[in-house]
């Protein structure tokens, strides 16, 4: 669907050149939800703008199906962009147009007649559950509602791909969850491939199939979400996955076991069972879990017993429950925090 080959983007600034993307190779598959995660300044926003050529790569190629976007004519590029929807952190709605006219904009510029455009826009408003706000102006809407309008607008031209640039970063946690659920629904029902740029691991956890971890313009690792979440290899991934100082969960100062919940049933009291089963007195050092639609996501840090046999006991019990765990010794994993 989308393929990046050696994409490099260098910005020339007064202080010298900055490499925002450094020989990035990625392939986004048809129908998946692909995440690109990294801390701010990692180059993810630049990279996503290279996908629809809002930024022209200094080097490398961007392929959209069989079209090489980096070599496409202006006209070909504009047509391709109609198949690549995009939503933004700041929504970017036309402030002087009401909701329905905002959604009609992409149809209008594509030459669709007014009546057909309005009908289409109304259908999309139903999907994003905003039919009652058709005549409202963006200033009269909440952040979540604005993002819903932006999503409807991006879907107006029936795109194959939807690019989401920090689409939930300006929203509160509950609204974030609802918007992510909507994106997931769009992916499943309409078959739209989605690319999500974020700095929040929980966004990736909730909806992504695969994820690329970025830092300093380089893709450090790329794999399924559970692979990265359970076994982060790069330092950046570890920092993103492991709780940081100042977060709700702090990295403990002594060795601990990290138990990862990756969509297992939240109705099952795993920790209580673990304690009852092993008979060990376990000490919770930190926890950050979320219940998303009956599935548990997040992690739990418990103190590592000194006895290796007990560690093994814990590990095998968790394995039987389908929950992964890893032992983190602070001396080696001290890069966090």
């Amino acid at each position, binding site marked *: 669907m989308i393929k990046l080959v050696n994409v490099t983007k260098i910005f020339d600034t007064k202080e010298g050149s900055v490499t925002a993307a450094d020989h990035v190779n990625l392939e986004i598959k048809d129908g998946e939800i692909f995440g690109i995660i990294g801390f701010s300044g990692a180059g993810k926003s630049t990279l996503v703008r290279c996908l*629809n050529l*809002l930024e022209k790569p200094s080097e490398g190629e961007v392929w959209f199906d069989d079209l090489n976007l980096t070599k496409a004519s202006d006209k070909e590029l504009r047509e391709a962009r109609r198949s690549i929807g*995009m939503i*933004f952190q700041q929504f970017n*709605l*036309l402030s*002087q147009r009401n909701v329905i006219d905002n959604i009609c904009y992409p149809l209008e510029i594509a030459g669709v007649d007014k009546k057909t455009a309005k009908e289409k826009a109304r259908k999309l408003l139903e999907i994003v559950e905003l039919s009652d706000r058709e005549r409202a*102006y963006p200033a009269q809407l909440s952040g979540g509602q604005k993002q819903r309008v*932006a999503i409807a607008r*991006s879907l107006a031209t029936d795109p194959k791909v939807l690019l989401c640039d920090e689409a939930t970063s300006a929203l509160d946690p509950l609204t974030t969850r609802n918007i992510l659920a909507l994106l997931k629904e769009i992916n499943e029902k309409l078959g739209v491939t989605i690319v999500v740029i974020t700095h929040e691991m929980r966004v990736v956890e909730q909806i992504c199939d695969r994820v690329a971890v970025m830092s300093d313009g380089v893709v450090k690792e790329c794999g399924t979400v559970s692979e990265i979440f359970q076994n982060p290899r790069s330092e950046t991934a570890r920092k993103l996955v492991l709780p940081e100082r100042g977060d709700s969960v702090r990295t403990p100062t002594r060795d601990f076991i990290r138990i990862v919940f990756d969509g297992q049933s939240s109705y099952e009291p795993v920790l209580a069972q673990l304690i009852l089963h092993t008979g060990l007195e376990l000490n919770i050092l930190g926890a950050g879990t979320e219940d998303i639609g009956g599935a548990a996501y997040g992690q739990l840090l418990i103190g590592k017993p000194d006895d290796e046999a007990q560690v093994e006991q814990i590990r095998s019990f968790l394995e039987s429950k389908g929950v992964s765990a890893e032992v983190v010794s602070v001396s080696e994993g001290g890069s966090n925090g």
Partner: protein
Amino acid sequence: MDEKLIELLLGGVGETFYMVIVSTLSAYILGIPLGVLVYVTGEGGIRQNRPVNVILSLIINIVRSVPFLILLVAILPFTRFVVGTTIGSTASIVPLVVAAAPFVARMVESSLKEVDLGVIEAAKAMGSTDWQIISKVLLPEAGPSLLLGMTIAFATILGYSAMAGFVGGGGLGAIAVNYGYYRYQTKVMMITVALLVIIVQIFQEGGIKLVNRIDRRMKN
């Protein structure tokens, strides 16, 4: 106050409206494309082009730097060429437009600069042509600000039109000069000035009210 004076003043008001309204509209007909051109060729614009931008900017700055009275006299041959005469209200319109168009272009440019760059980026991402971005995004989004700028341009052009009265222009300015200044009729002078104040007031306040009505960025 005798009937003759009232008639004179009413005629003056009419002429002033004619000059200022026609000049403002003409200045916008020239100033909007010029302002858009300066904006889109500017740094980070959708058609960035440094040479064009620098040259346009220079022309605008030069015309804007020339004091209006000097410009008025300097372009008299041009005025005669365009309208066939150098006296009266219609003749005043030519220098008014020449002086106001670059000023309007700057106002348009600054209104366009207020448009959120994210919205332009979104329009690009949706596959808009540059012309669609200008006509369907930039200008409508800047609409209220452009209208507010227009009320400012109107007041400025009104001031210029009064100056044109000194060199044979028409309208209230000419009355103030001919009766108030040359014939020492202080009363006429006072009335014309008061009328000018009232006109500016009406257009400025009316403009602001209209802007508030049409601007969708405010919650109402």
